[in-house]
């Protein structure tokens, strides 16, 4: 009987230790290289004023974690855009912003910068999808979306 009691307590402690993520993470040695890099998102609305946008960025190759989101270069989109905090430390994010004012950008403008943590040496590949873009009347406009990596904006 004493053996059964002792065995039960040892088994319970073992299960507890295995389920605590901090303990299991601490036991894994970190061998991957890590670096941080920004990804600049540009949207070209042509001659139409850009009043609202929404896009999705996803890493389709390489290991990344999103660590921060920054606003754009034009005053209309300088403030940090809307995004789901659950995207942080993940590899997919949906970003959106709007401005109801009159001072709106036209042509090619940087709308946001996403800061990434890149794990390993492989260069990540991204999938960028424009969900919506609209002018100051709320009318959908066609626009070209692309990204640029590197420190230079």
């Amino acid at each position: 009987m004493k053996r059964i009691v002792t065995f039960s307590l040892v088994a319970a402690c073992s299960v507890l230790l295995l389920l605590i993520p901090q303990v299991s993470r601490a036991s894994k040695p970190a061998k991957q290289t890590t670096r941080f890099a920004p990804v600049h998102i540009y949207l070209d609305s042509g001659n139409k004023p850009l009043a609202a946008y929404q896009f999705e960025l996803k890493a389709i190759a390489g290991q990344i974690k999103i660590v921060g989101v920054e606003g754009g270069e034009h005053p209309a989109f300088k403030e940090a855009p809307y995004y789901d905090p659950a995207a942080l430390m993940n590899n997919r994010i949906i970003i959106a912003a709007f401005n109801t004012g009159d001072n709106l950008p036209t042509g090619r403008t940087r709308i946001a910068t996403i800061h990434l943590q890149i794990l390993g040496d492989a260069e990540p590949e991204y999938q960028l999808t424009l969900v919506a873009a609209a002018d100051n009347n709320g009318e959908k406009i066609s626009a070209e979306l692309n990204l640029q990596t590197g420190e230079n904006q």
Partner: protein
Amino acid sequence: MTDHNRQFDDAEQHVSPQFRKDLRALFDPPGPVPQQVDKAILASAGACLRKRKHGTPHRLIIPLRWAAVAAAAVIVLGTILYHQAVPTNHQSSIINHQSVAERRADIDDNGRVDILDAFRLARDIESRGQADTKWDLNGDGVVDRKDVDVVAVAAVRLDKGV
């Protein structure tokens, strides 16, 4: 052997019936043992032997064993429930609590919630001063920028998809 002793060698020597009866009464068993007495003695002996074998009363061991199993089960269950807890990040809490309101956030009624719904609501509020009360998505009695935020947060939710 002397003549004096020879008298006891005679196997056919007769004894009186009374003498025979007295001898039997001395050496025969007193009578059959009643069954109740037999059982009582056996039970008492068994209890005594068990007590000696285990050293402690049998009743105390069962709760200890089951208590250890119950403690292990409680620890495992508690750990599982802890990992299923809702995130405490403030903006994530807004997203979770307003999931019902998000279903009403399709302002332009095009079948999906995106930033253009938030943009339309914001323009309505700014142009009219107040919008339709059906757009009070956070239930505070007022249609204002907070309701616009509810729509915008719904638009960028990851589990909703594009």
